[in-house]
């Protein structure tokens, strides 16, 4: 009998919240590139006698993310202690949440090849990060060390853990889910969502359901440090688990670590192994009542969510899938686009130009879109000319370059470049067309004889005209002039 399998994946995504200070003390959250153990205090070092005080900003950012994920925010929430010994955990417990997390029961749509799938979110809770162990030898190498160093600058940095239901059925879906969360937290400015630096971390739970009714045990995969690594780890794990089941064996429920270099997952015999965390309510932090007004306020001030915006661009604006994704990913970009349209630009035209030129300018210069010399109003007035045909795309691109370089408005930029809207007079245009046709008798002859069925020759000649007039007329105008001049040549030759 041929067996088939279904893959079941659930993800735990840890997002570092973009607060200035740590979750339970006022130390700065900066830990990358800081001198080790400088952003610390008695509280985040867990010194005897120290106590935690909750950072309200972290709570607010957690609520913001939770509402965007359509979760219900609990009216009362509380923290628990998760107890285990490890040198990067200075109190030997992590303050986390357990039975009453900040928020529960949400969902988030992910887009897969034109199909939308809603992934249910089990919960979102807050917790503190641990410190960082550095394994370093005396000569500074990182392997073969006989001792480890620990840096507590990261200890106590606020994290939101977002737990999905086991509803993802492939590594591709898992990938799309993580990318969607990353876009969301960046969009909401809840986190920088950077996986490489560890601001966004993923643990994946994966199991197999066999067509003969067997359910493989769940395996947790840790140490995936990029979306690609997660996909590879899941792909590897699917094959490994299916082979075990095909051999009629049982899958061990365990935590496995992804070895990116070797491209395999390995059974972990470290701190996560068979732990009893002895969770109990953190007695140093009374339960927190979450103000209903605050939740309402945060809910009302949430921007249009990226997936809603994307849908709107597709349905109402008629933009392509690709345009919609890239233009809805970042709130500032989306607002720039929408303002450009509000100032009178055509939607599709604005979408093309923002995606092609404005984003490029932003990337090339590193200047935030809101600080670019060319604002939505300037772009809109440029695009109005393009739409009306008084500027060709080529000319408009030159004008935009000047607007950007000199920080001037459309009018001044056109003057500067010697281009003016509807720049060539009708006479000048006709004269140019006539000159080009005369200078290219062979092509002209074919056209007049009706031999240019593929319109290649006409296009070639029109290109020459455009070049001559430096794009200062719309294509239709040039085309009309072409027809007129060709007509008169035909008349003359009769």
């Amino acid at each position: 009998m041929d067996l088939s399998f279904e893959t079941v994946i659930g993800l735990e995504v840890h997002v570092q919240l973009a607060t200035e200070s740590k979750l339970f003390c006022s130390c700065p959250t900066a830990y990358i590139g800081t001198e080790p153990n400088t952003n610390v205090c008695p509280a985040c070092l867990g010194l005897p006698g120290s106590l935690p005080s909750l950072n309200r900003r972290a709570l607010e950012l957690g609520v913001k993310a939770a509402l965007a994920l359509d979760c219900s925010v609990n009216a009362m929430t509380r923290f628990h202690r998760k107890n285990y010994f490890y040198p990067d955990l200075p109190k030997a417990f992590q303050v986390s949440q357990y039975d009453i997390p900040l928020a529960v029961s949400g969902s988030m749509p992910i887009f897969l090849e034109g199909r939308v799938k809603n992934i249910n979110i089990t919960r979102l809770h807050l917790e503190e990060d641990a410190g960082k162990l550095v394994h370093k030898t005396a000569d500074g190498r990182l392997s073969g060390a006989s001792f480890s160093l620990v840096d507590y600058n990261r200890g106590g940095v606020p994290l939101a853990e977002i737990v999905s239901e086991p509803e993802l059925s492939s590594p591709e879906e898992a990938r799309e889910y993580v990318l969607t969360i990353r876009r969301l937290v960046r969009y909401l400015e809840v986190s920088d969502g950077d996986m490489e630096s560890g601001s966004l971390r993923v643990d994946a739970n994966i199991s197999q359901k066999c067509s003969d009714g067997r359910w493989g045990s769940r395996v947790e995969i840790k140490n995936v440090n990029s979306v690609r690594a997660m996909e590879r780890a899941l792909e590897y794990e699917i094959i490994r688990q299916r082979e075990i089941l095909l051999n009629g064996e049982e899958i061990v429920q365990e935590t496995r670590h992804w070895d990116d270099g070797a491209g395999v997952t390995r059974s972990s015999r470290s701190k996560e192994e068979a732990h009893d965390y002895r969770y109990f309510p953190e007695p140093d932090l009374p339960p927190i009542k979450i103000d209903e007004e605050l939740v309402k306020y945060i809910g009302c001030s949430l921007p249009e969510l990226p997936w809603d915006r994307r849908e709107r661009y597709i349905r109402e604006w008629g933009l392509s899938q690709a345009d919609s994704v890239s233009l809805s990913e970042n709130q500032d970009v989306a607002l720039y686009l929408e303002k450009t349209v509000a100032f009178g630009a055509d939607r599709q035209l604005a979408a093309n130009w923002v995606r092609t030129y404005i984003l490029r300018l932003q990337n090339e210069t590193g200047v935030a879109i809101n600080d670019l010399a060319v604002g939505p109003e300037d772009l809109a007035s440029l695009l109005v000319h393009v739409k009306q045909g008084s500027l060709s795309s080529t000319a408009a691109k030159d004008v935009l370059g000047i607007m950007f370089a000199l920080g001037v408005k459309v009018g001044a930029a056109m003057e500067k470049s010697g281009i003016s809207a509807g720049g060539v007079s009708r006479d000048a245009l006709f004269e140019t067309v006539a000159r080009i046709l005369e200078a290219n008798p062979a092509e002209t002859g074919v056209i007049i004889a009706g031999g240019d069925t593929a319109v290649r020759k006409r296009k070639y000649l029109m290109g020459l005209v455009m070049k001559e007039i430096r794009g200062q007329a719309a294509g239709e105008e040039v085309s009309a002039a072409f027809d007129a001049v060709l007509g008169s040549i035909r008349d003359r030759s009769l």
Partner: protein
Amino acid sequence: MIFHEMEASRIASGIRDGEFTARDVVGDCLARMQALEPVLNALITPLSEKAIAKAESIDKAVSSGKSPGPLGGVPVVVKDNMCTRGVRTTCGSRILGDWKPPYDATVIELLEKAGAVVIGKSNMDEFAMGSSTEHSAFGPASNPRDTDRVPGGSSGGSAASVAAGYVPIALGSDTGGSIRQPAAFCGVHGLKPTYGLVSRWGLVAFASSLDQIGPFARSVSDMALVMDVIASYDHKDSTCRPGGRPVFSESIKEPSVKGKKVGIVREFQNGTLDGDIERSIENTASMLSSSGAEIVDISLPESAAYGLPCYYIIAPAEASSNLARFDGVRYGLREEAPDLISQFLRTRSAGFGEEVQRRILTGTFALSSGYYDAYYLLALKVRRRICVEFTQAFEAADVILMPATPSLPFRKGEFIDDPISMYMSDVFTLPVNLAGLPGMTVSTGMNASGLPLSVQIVAPRWADSRLLEFAAVIEAWAGRPGISSGGVL
């Protein structure tokens, strides 16, 4: 002048008015301490030089016309589980080694700001676990009223310091009776404030939901004086109640119990209670009655039956987590080992004493998966019922009058190998911690053999000033406790 017999309020006003100097007062108290310390071992770390320097700075302030603060020049002792910047803080344990905190506990800051002179850090049962100060890595302390007997615990060193006249006031911490029981044993007053009245920032935690800092004193007015200094909102302790505090010294100006209802707990008048203590309760009740109070019967069956087991699940459970940080990685003792786990095990086995290890094991067990519901969760439910029971009792009574301890101070070594009997010493005090209430041991003199007698009074949450008012009435009748030298001088 014999400064070490004086009340703190008298010392402070004498220094403020230029009648005598802080240097003289501190010198006298240090001499007293140095004479008795070889016998009492009430201090783990005496701070003589620091104290003299501080006294001199107080004198300088006074002579330049500055106010030295409400406790200006008053010598005090603090329990060695309160963090003192740059000064060794041991918790009576080996595991902290020579650790010097980089910060002061909030109560230390407040005392310093008020001009108090810390002359030493007091001996205690290791991590405040014990009722005799015998479980100290620095050797047992003795009771100044009878040096063959224990001073009680865990704040035995602080209680002994006040009873012996090292200082007029001292700070202790009380998780299940660790202020009130040693106060009773040493014959001084001891107050455990309402949970959340005094900041715990800088108090090395034993059981976070029960721990509370409070004072020892030989007079109710000194008690009020120090409460006015240490009872203050602190944002660094999330369990500290926001808002103002009553002026405690005002509440004892014209103390009266007229028309107040005093509850007597029938369940606590059982056969195990020492006869002298029982009579002390009865005498206090009749005095209060003749002063215009009404004596009413109340019932606390849950506290009587389940208080002790409930406490001995919750406190060790929290302790097992609070004490997990002592792993030899960052500070304190480290026993080197070839691997991490062995280093943890060796360090903790060598650093913690037997009683602390017992409680860590008990607490770890109570929180373990499969046992959590049967132990920890059940204990939380019982705790809830004890709270409700007290709330109901306070519908009938303004204060509850009950014993602080079931027995008079026991002899050294008497219960050292019998933890359960030792635990019984706190049977009347620990329900008060479970309910977060204020409770106070008020000294009521001595029995025929010269051992201290006392009563415990308990009030509703945040009614700490009511306790002081009652204590003032009892003190006016029973007299203020004096000092003892334990026969040494």
